[in-house]
């Protein structure tokens, strides 16, 4: 992360630069489609996944047909409807868990970076230790020992995913702290709380936003993995859980590809949306040179849009 990060000054200026990033736009579009699907699930889904149905042997892993566009699963339920409703859990876990992570990460990062000294030492040592302990096995252990409810999963993913953000936010805080306006604010009598609130935080915020998008994608991946390992809330249908059911209940031997492909594509779609959006935002907030001395037909030029923000 370079120290020259400059936040876009206004919302419209931000949008003007963001519009130039093809990846960012595609990511935003993809994310909006999943959110719309989750919000309007009851209106889009052909069947209600919670409805009681009568099942005959022919309904189990039935291939795609006019009645079931994506076939049925091991319980004779409509895969497409499950898929549409499944987006809700993935997004809920993704958003809530990453808010927890980002909150802890930002507080730790800003406090460590701003106050320095012993507080920084203790906090960053703790962060380093947490960073080394592998997340997924620890999450598996905690969820396996507690009740695998939706909130437990959100809390565990959130509480384990903050280390990267803490380090990023700290280094950015350190850079901002050196700027002249902080010294000026202090010289006219501003206190620590005021400086953090009005000078440090707004300058760190853009970085936090980019990071949030990436943390959401990680949280969605983690949720799907825990669910796939059978550690999900049995009442909350998610894409990972659909894959767990299909994989452990004979979809492989029934060659029922329709029960395996869609939920996975859903996860890829949501995660890729956040990744692309994150890349787009980063190009706006932290423009880098994208060419070099050995490039084909090289001429050192800054990315368009860079000069507009300085």
């Amino acid at each position, binding site marked *: 992360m370079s120290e020259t990060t400059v936040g876009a000054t206004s919302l419209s200026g931000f949008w003007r630069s963001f519009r130039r990033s093809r*990846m960012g736009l595609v990511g935003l579009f993809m994310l909006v489609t999943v959110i719309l699907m989750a919000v309007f699930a009851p209106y889009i889904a052909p069947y209600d996944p919670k409805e009681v149905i009568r099942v005959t042997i022919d309904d189990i892993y039935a291939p795609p047909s006019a009645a079931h566009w994506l076939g049925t699963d091991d319980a004779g339920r409509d895969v497409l409807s499950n898929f549409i409703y499944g987006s809700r859990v993935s997004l809920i876990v993704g958003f809530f868990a990453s808010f927890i992570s980002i909150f802890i990460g930002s507080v730790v990062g800003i406090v460590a970076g701003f106050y320095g000294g012993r507080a920084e030492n203790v906090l960053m*040592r703790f962060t*380093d*230790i947490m*960073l*080394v*302990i*592998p*997340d*997924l*096995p*620890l999450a*598996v*252990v*905690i969820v*396996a*020992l*507690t*009740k695998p409810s939706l909130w437990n999963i959100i809390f565990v993913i959130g509480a384990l995913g903050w280390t990267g953000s803490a380090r990023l936010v700290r280094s950015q805080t350190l850079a901002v702290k050196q700027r002249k306006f902080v010294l000026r604010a202090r010289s006219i009598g501003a206190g620590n709380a005021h400086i953090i609130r009005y000078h440090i935080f707004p300058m760190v915020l853009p970085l936090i936003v980019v990071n949030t998008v990436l943390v959401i*994608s990680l949280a969605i*991946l983690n949720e*799907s*993995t825990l669910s*796939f*390992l*059978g*550690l999900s809330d049995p009442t909350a249908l998610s894409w*990972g859980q659909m*894959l767990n059911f299909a*994989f452990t209940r004979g979809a*492989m031997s029934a*060659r029922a*590809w329709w029960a*395996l*492909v869609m*939920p*996975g594509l859903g*996860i*890829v779609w949501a*995660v*890729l949306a956040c*990744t*692309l959006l994150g*890349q787009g935002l980063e190009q706006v907030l932290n423009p*880098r*040179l*994208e*060419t*070099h*001395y*050995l*490039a*084909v037909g090289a001429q*050192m030029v800054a990315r368009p849009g860079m000069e507009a923000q300085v």
Partner: protein
Amino acid sequence: MRQSRYLLKKIGWALLTVLIVILLNFFLFRILPGDPARAGIRDPRLTQDAVAAIRERFGLDKPVINCFESLNPVEFGSCGVNPLDTQLFIYVGNLLSGELGISYHTNRPVIDMLKEQLWNTVLLIGAGQILAIFLGMGLGVLAAWRARTTIDFSALLASLTFWSLPTFWLGIILLFWGSSQFGLPTGGKLTPAGNFANIWEEWADVGWHLLLPTLTYTIVFLGEYMLIMRSTLLDVLSEDYILTAKAKGLRTAQILKDHALQNAMLPMVTIIALNLGFTVAGAIQIETVFSWPGLGGAIFEAVERKDYPMLQGAFLLIAVSVIFANLVADLLYSYLDPRVQAG
């Protein structure tokens, strides 16, 4: 002098982290509902004798630690207890002598099972990691060199997509495709009841089983290595000494090899180390999908069977391995770039 102090400091932190993992492992399993030792006593699969043996081994009649014997605040204040006579001390003592308990499922010592599984996991991770690093770096160099061309853009998009793939799902899809199209094995390490004329045939069979898991692993990790290599190399290639080298009339290949790559390698070491946690996460998923008899698959099975001693042991071994691998990476980095010792 400074070097040995740096070394000691790094080793000290690694040991402290291991200690924290041990404490975490102890308290998580004692405090959360699924206490292995106590749940074990209630487990109907065990005989009376086995229950007595477990009680004895873990010192279950003794206080958990020195100053509280249970989480009940009324019973606080047993500080008069000899610290050597607590469950925590017995647990740490057992660990030091390699005693990790008995698996509920197989009734074998956990440590013996973990030893077999560790090497299977190392084999899988090793093969996948080497392929992913080499291919990722190669693609990264290509993308950076051809920056802002179609090659660069496609490589970038492919990497982001690979990064977004859930490992277990990619495994499922490859397994589905590979087993039906090419008759590749659907799981395990060896053909069941296979008869092998010699060790080479046996290894060939292992390799055959390793093909799809390794492919899954490589695809998932390729993306990140490529992205890092690309962005580091872009930075390095924008340095003025590259222009100097070009002005001297050196060929592009030579500048890339002798001037740029050497400096771009350093961040790769850090990323590979930082990735170790994800590496383990990937192994858990891949081993589960392909029934590969490694540590990760063991975790999944232990969760399914509520085999808590196995879960506890596998978590400890995984965490400690990652901590030590990180330490090695740290020391390697300081050897490659002596400047870090100053900071």
